[in-house]
């Protein structure tokens, strides 16, 4: 038995290593674009602003997401009942821009099973990294137009008056579906974060 290696902040200068996105001469492991030609599901954009305790946008944060495809399949190898499917990676990574904005082009995930077999409402796992954040934060993104939210076992654990912070709002823009998911680290409308 050995203790964990402790977390440290990602710092302000991670972009050239983790999110070069064509701005730096290094390859991208993952970007905000998760779309692959064969991916199953409705194409959507997710976007939001990360802001601090003063409500000021955070231009030096990084958001990572992990999600199932449109049929609720997590793209993992073997085991756990999850099905390897397409070239869809299920993982995305986006820096925030100078206005604190991050974005992902992906598909809306299907419902996936909970350990007790009860389905969870469609959701995406979200991890937040930033300068000034010593240990990353976990949250979840749910979709405003899903009736299944009402019976989701995880959402039920969240005080009713704070659930709203986990629900991405649907907009249509130029014929495209956009879900808005702002992340407030601290203060009024503070996003619910999970201790997992």
């Amino acid at each position, binding site marked *: *038995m050995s203790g*964990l290696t402790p977390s440290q902040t990602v710092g302000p200068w991670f972009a050239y290593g983790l999110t070069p996105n064509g701005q730096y001469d290094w390859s991208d492991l993952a970007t905000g674009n998760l779309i692959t030609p064969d991916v199953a599901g409705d194409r959507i954009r997710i976007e939001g602003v990360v802001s601090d*305790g003063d409500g000021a946008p955070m231009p030096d944060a990084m958001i990572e997401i992990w999600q199932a495809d449109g049929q609720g399949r997590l793209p993992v190898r073997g085991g756990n009942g999850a099905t390897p499917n397409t070239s869809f990676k299920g993982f995305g990574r986006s820096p925030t821009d100078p206005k604190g904005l991050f974005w992902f082009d992906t598909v809306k995930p299907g419902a996936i099973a909970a350990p007790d077999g009860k389905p969870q409402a469609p959701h995406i796992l979200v991890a937040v990294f930033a300068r000034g954040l010593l240990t990353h934060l976990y949250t979840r993104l749910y979709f405003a137009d899903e009736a299944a939210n009402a019976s989701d076992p995880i959402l039920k654990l969240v005080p009713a008056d704070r659930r709203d912070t986990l629900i991405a709002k649907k907009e249509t823009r130029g014929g495209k579906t956009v879900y808005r998911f702002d992340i407030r*680290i*601290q203060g009024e409308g*503070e996003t619910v974060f999970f201790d997992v």
Partner: protein
Amino acid sequence: MSIVYPIDSMKVHPSRAFAGYKSTAKRHPVKPLIIVPHTMSELTGPVYGHDAIRPGDEDLTAHGKTGEPLGERIVLHGYVLDEDARPVPDALVEIWQTNAAGRYIHVGEKHPAPLDPNFTGAGRALTDKDGHYKFVTIKPGAYPWGNHHNAWRPAHIHFSLFGRSFLSRLVTQMYFPGDPLLEYDPISQSVTDLKARARMICSFDLDNTVPEWALAYRFDIVLRGRDATPMEH
């Protein structure tokens, strides 16, 4: 094989509100985090294979435009382990760091130290079946930051790791033994458990030092998760 993810061992991580590191003040949640069970979403994570890395990604001294970077060449290697000290194979390790002069290539960085056209400072490696990874790089430099008067970061290399699930995700920093700046550095001191803090410091490795070529340092990393099967005694 299933993996369990104890919550208790997470206590070694720094508090997100650490007064010595000023930027934490407005960047930590003040409402309590909600404890939730681990579902399929948490217990899975992105899988990386050799398609995620290209030959040479692990040699940061070979990414230059005209030749090798300036500075002290080092071999940096170690094992990625789980909480039962079992190897984690196929863990993706990403690193980024300053050049020998303490300068990052990030466009926003204003530290008046020279850039090195032969050093970009980013690398990537995958652990083998024994959980072993290896980089070749140069020793980074200390650099100033605005946290307090005369604040300098000790030389460090940033590490980002993917293990067996989204729960074992880790972003950390590795420090060098004997660095006098460590005792003045609020970021490393945010880890208050002294044994845990020591785990962020690599060790000089004479056995793997390559004669006439490079010093070696070893940095083992322990990720969250342990085998659900009881260990045999």
